[in-house]
């Protein structure tokens, strides 16, 4: 199953003083096992542009569509056997402690 893993900031990060896992190692490990297909880090939400079309008119505005304290700072596209494997992949990501991760499966449109 494919999961889009949204990497988000969190106003209450982990206070555990032990060292965070290394992101390079995390990427290398999961890439080599075929569990991570791609991923990247986003520029700050202030760089975002929102686009809408209403009654044929193009509306372009500055910034993200919603201002929130927690923001999406990046993503990883995972390919895992099931949710349990995706959770195992997510738990070792440094942002599981420094922020939060949201696992979103893709809709199954085959039915």
């Amino acid at each position: 199953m494919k999961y889009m893993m949204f990497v988000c900031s969190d106003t209450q990060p982990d206070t555990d003083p032990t060292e965070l896992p290394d992101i390079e190692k995390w990427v290398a490990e999961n890439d080599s096992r075929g569990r991570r297909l791609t991923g990247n880090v986003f520029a700050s939400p202030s760089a975002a542009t929102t686009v809408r079309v209403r009654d044929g008119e193009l509306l372009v505005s500055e910034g993200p569509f919603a201002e929130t304290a927690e923001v999406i700072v990046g993503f990883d596209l995972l390919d895992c056997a099931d949710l349990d494997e995706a959770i195992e992949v997510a738990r070792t990501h440094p942002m599981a402690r420094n922020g939060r991760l949201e696992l979103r499966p893709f809709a199954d449109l085959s039915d």
Partner: protein
Amino acid sequence: MQRRPVRNPAPAGAAAAEAVAEASVEAYPRIVATLIRVTGDWALAEDCAQESLTVALERWPTDGVPANPGGWLMTVARNRAIDVLRRATVERRKLHDLALLTPDEAQPEPEVGQDVVDDRLRLIFTCCHPALAIEARVALTLRTVCGVPTADIARLLLVSESTMTRRLTRARTRIAQAGIPYRVPSGPALTERLPGVLAVLYLLFTRGYVPDGEPAFADEAVRLARLLDRLMPDQSEVAALLALCLFQHSRRDARRDAAGNLLTLERQDRDRWDRAAIAEGLVAIDRVRHDGPYAWQARIAACHATAASADETDWPTIARAYDALADLRPSPVIALNRAVAHGYAYGPAAGLVLLDAARAGGGLDGYPLAVAVQADLVARQGDRPRAAGLFREAAAAVGSTAERRALLDRADELAR
């Protein structure tokens, strides 16, 4: 369907209904679990299992109870699933796998080997997956593992039947969409996940056991704990949870007087405690090897269950167990119980010191039981008017009618 040898010639309708109920306890979760494994379709599995019970209720009164009731039910459920899937023109593999299912799969207890994972265990772990909301876990477990009808679950959880139907549908959809596996975790993952399963069982039990609760919950929880203990005999905390539930459950008939008033432990008629449940609990606790949170709670419950009278309760042992539990799982309520235990073991002054400490964090603010404990300790120190006032204060804040009555009775006694 193949006709099976008849054990009893045409029992009366009532006897047949009883036979169906008896057979379904063992067979229902097994049928549902097996059909889910083969078809991956939760709703279909539940419908077919339910259907097999309905057919049995129609047929057994006239045909007699079959020699192998579980196998009979499994056959009916399997055939029903084949019919439904044929009409839906699904994959041939599923039909093939279904056709291969032997009715023996619903037979009571083949040995649970190390490698063979019982389908019911998969079902329990999937229903109790942490990616489901706790309410969904409880409802799904009751429906799928215990076979409680949706209408009854709705009544027990105080929602309408249509709301409960929607909730169950959403939970099943979520299992499929989120990719929750139909599997028992292994290795360290099992250690992580088991407490979540036990929490659902214990929540189920306490829902039934609380003063205004539904006893049916407690019965189902005990049955589930027994099943889980049989399926995972090496898990110390499962045995401990079973023992804990059984010890508490043993007091179900002694907890109220004839007028329905709640009786505290020391006022209960211990002859009305269920000795068989206590004996079963003692056998279970004998297998507890690990000092987990349920182990300590079960040991505390065992002290109460085995005391010949309230005065003979081994309070120092209970106090030590609460010390350990408070270390392991610090919480305001455990701190409160610890104060009670020390109050009985070492006198009310010792209890009041610990009660003050427990309340210092603010975690017991607005918790009427903390006031009731203070009232009891103050009463035992001899200050009856102050104790009576505190019991009234606790009664005014308590939610359940039965508890309020019990607290007001204590206040009246002290004011006399």
